[in-house]
């Protein structure tokens, strides 16, 4: 499917004009993009490392997962909105950039994985179930750790691909 027309439309939009002519606004939005990414990945790393029993082992894992959820969504909205603005400035360049597409694929995969597998598995982790219900409802501990590793890998690749766009 040819979706270059979306980039052509974005390239000709008022958003692109604003991004190209206002260096000050662009740098501010870029800062928002990076800070949103830091918040998103920071919250994800915190939850995943807790599930791997690396950090904050004295705090119940369900407390960490519940309290980071809202900030993960805020970070996601922040990176998507600021990302569209940033992309509008170099839309035609990005249309053929393999790292941009790898980043988008990673982002889509990360969001789907986050909302489906990670969310379902973490809510049925042995530690979480242990305090609320029978252990037979719990997913095995090694699966929880595997999900945490996969999630860390996905978001690391999203961040790294984003950086690579700047080099390519």
């Amino acid at each position, binding site marked *: 499917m040819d979706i270059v027309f979306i980039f052509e439309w974005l390239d000709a939009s008022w958003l692109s004009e604003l991004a190209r002519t206002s260096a000050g606004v662009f740098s501010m939005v870029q800062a928002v993009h990076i800070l949103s990414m830091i918040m998103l990945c920071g919250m994800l790393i915190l939850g995943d490392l807790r599930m791997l029993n690396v950090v904050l082992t004295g705090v119940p894992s369900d407390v960490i997962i519940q309290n980071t959820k809202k900030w993960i969504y805020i970070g996601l909205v922040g990176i998507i909105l600021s990302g569209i603005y940033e992309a509008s400035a170099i839309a035609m360049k990005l249309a053929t950039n393999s790292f941009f597409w790898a980043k988008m694929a990673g982002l889509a995969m990360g969001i789907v994985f986050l909302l489906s597998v990670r969310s379902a598995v973490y809510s049925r982790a042995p530690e979480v179930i242990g305090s609320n219900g029978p252990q037979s409802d719990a997913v095995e501990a090694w699966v929880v750790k595997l999900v945490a590793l996969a999630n860390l890998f996905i978001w690391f690749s999203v961040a790294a691909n984003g950086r*690579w766009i700047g080099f390519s």
Partner: protein
Amino acid sequence: MTANTLGKIAAVCSIVIIIGWGVYWAVQVQDTMCLLEAATSEDMPECLEQMYE
């Protein structure tokens, strides 16, 4: 969904992502490193010939 089924689905998804995405990403980085090398050297690097084979 039972915990057992969820565990199996999650494990398969995670392994596919780690291996599949890892291989794809490694090849992509390797290709880009090769293109960077080609752009900065006078001779055509071997990796460039292999890339287009």
